[in-house]
């Protein structure tokens, strides 16, 4: 299978405006290092799950891939085209093929537009349909996400959170994209509704042959929906591989800590064996030198404090960035 999306060494720094005085004094500008050399590829038809805690850069990555945020450097190839260098018309054409569903359906839908207008806008912008055909496509799209065609006349506030997320999904899919970034699509929803939306995304993926980048902080959800997973910490991928393999035998101490921190209904008596993380996430303004995880890692040694570990292949499918795990033959 060929890669639909290939991200190479993506960097995104947000500069911080220090104000006039430091600039006059010639102090170097600082910045938030949201993404620091991220590489990944997603094959056509697969779901890549991106796990990480808040501030790790997972949403920035999702948005940078669609160029909603301009990357500082790096390459993003989508279907063979490097989209970092695209001009506005080129990017517009590309955006038809790649879409996004945001986390909060209370904020991502314009409250002053009817659901019909919200769904019609992408079709109009791309000049794909008008008049009766446009209405028919909007109606059909609403039905395929489990709503009714006559809901087009209503406004977002007339819907529950789960229904709003269905509308957001319909808006993302109405252009028949190949690739969808799902950025925490169920995190704002109640438990019983989360399962409905996961089910819907799963069915649409199968029916329409979609490829997903599924971003979530919920490891069980990621494990359930993903073919492969990538674990992010402070702007870098620390571990990646097939979802089942990574979640069954996580190697990176951070992945292991994440797994054991999840409160679970299915845990046996292994609470005592948990890997406990102490402390908070360091500031991405000033990430620790060496391995970025060393300040919270129980296994850190001298080398971890000085030398950043490379993300190295473990076999033909898994990658881990750690000096100590898994223990590799010399």
């Amino acid at each position: 299978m060929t890669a639909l999306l290939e991200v190479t060494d993506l960097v995104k720094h947000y500069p911080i405006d220090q104000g006039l005085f430091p600039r006059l004094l010639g102090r170097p500008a600082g910045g938030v290092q949201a993404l620091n050399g991220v590489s990944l590829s997603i094959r056509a038809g697969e779901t890549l799950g991106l796990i990480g805690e808040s501030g790790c850069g997972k949403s920035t990555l999702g948005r940078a891939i669609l160029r909603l945020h301009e990357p500082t450097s790096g390459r993003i190839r989508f279907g063979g085209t490097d989209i970092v260098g695209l001009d506005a018309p080129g990017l517009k054409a590309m955006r038809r093929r790649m879409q996004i569903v945001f986390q909060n359906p209370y904020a991502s839908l314009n409250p002053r537009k009817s659901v019909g207008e919200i769904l019609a806008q992408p079709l109009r912008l791309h000049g794909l349909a008008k008049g009766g055909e446009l209405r028919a496509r909007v109606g059909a799209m609403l039905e395929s996400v489990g709503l009714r065609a006559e809901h087009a006349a209503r406004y977002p506030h007339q819907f529950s959170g789960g229904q709003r997320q269905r509308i957001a999904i319909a808006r993302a899919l109405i252009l028949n994209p190949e690739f969808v970034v799902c950025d925490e699509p169920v995190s704002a929803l109640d438990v019983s509704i989360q399962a409905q939306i996961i089910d819907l995304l799963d069915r649409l993926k199968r029916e329409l042959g979609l490829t997903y980048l599924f971003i979530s902080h919920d490891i069980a959800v990621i494990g359930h929906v993903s073919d492969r997973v990538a674990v992010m910490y402070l702007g870098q991928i620390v571990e990646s591989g097939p979802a089942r393999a990574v979640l069954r035998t996580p190697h990176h101490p951070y992945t292991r800590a994440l797994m054991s921190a999840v409160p679970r209904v299915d845990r046996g008596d292994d609470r005592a064996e948990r890997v406990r993380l102490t402390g908070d996430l360091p500031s991405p303004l000033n990430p620790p030198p060496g391995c970025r995880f060393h300040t919270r890692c129980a296994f850190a040694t001298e080398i971890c404090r000085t030398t950043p570990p490379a993300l190295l292949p473990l076999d033909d499918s898994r990658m881990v960035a750690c000096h100590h795990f898994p223990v590799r033959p010399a």
Partner: protein
Amino acid sequence: MTDHPMPEPLLSITDLRVAFATRGGLVRAVDGVSLEVRAGECLGIVGESGSGKSVTFASVMGLIRPPGRIEGGSIRFGGRDLVGLDPAAYRRLRGREIAMTLQDASTSLNPALTVGTQITEVLLAHAEDLPAGHGPRRRAARQRAIDMMRLVGIPAAEGRLDDYPHQFSGGMRQRMMIAIALSCRPRLLIADEPTTALDVTIQAQVLELIAGIRATLGMSVVLITHDLGVVAEYCDRVAVLYAGQIVESGPTAQVIAAPRHPYTAGLLRSVPVLSDLDRPIQPIPGQVPDLVDLPEGCRFLPRCALAHAACHAAVPMRGLGAGRAARCVLAEAAP
């Protein structure tokens, strides 16, 4: 049902009814909730948005304000009925005997006051054993504030007392809220979604902290959450709420291993589990009923796969022995 006599529970809510008058009609947010919290235990309250879980405990704290109204029932705490308690008596109770932490620590702390001011304010208002005199009293309160901040694991507590909430991370703010809530050593801590806004690694730290302090101080804890995993790991007993009513209650391990209400069973089937990622998740179809226009019979009926003719009449809670109960006509049948 039990072999030894039970002491009187610390908190006992009987047939509590709370309603809010809205333009759309009367919202019956809590409709006949009865539950008990025993001394030293941790009770988990599970429910989705609108289930009444927060309103139930806002009632315990005396925080229901118009258009909300407690329409009936009783809330007994330490031998007293709290419904209709006068405001001055309630003020003495809150903070000192019952404390509550709210979901979002970033909006519950006053951004314009230092955390030190916010924690010593509680101590100066409620603590009975501070020395007399303005200066010694303030110094003692400050020292106790530092001790509480240490207890909840805030590093370099003396140095942080004069910091403002925005200078703390989300996890540290939640710890600060817990420190404030615990500063007068209450007998009951009500933690409303204490970890929902936090990352999993920080969530684990905060939950372990609450469990540890509960053991140290011997207090009772009510943990309000939507996460069954949190309940499974930290609560002795659980009550599941749906549309303003308790639909199932009992010892946590038994309820999770063999739920007797279809809603509890549905919730458990709708979350993916790490130990069996290939298990399909089964969503509960439909949505929570409108609290203004509730069905006559079982409130879960429109979403239930086991619906029965008897479900159209009101369904009472049925005791199932061993401390378990469920509001389902099929509760006695094997699940």
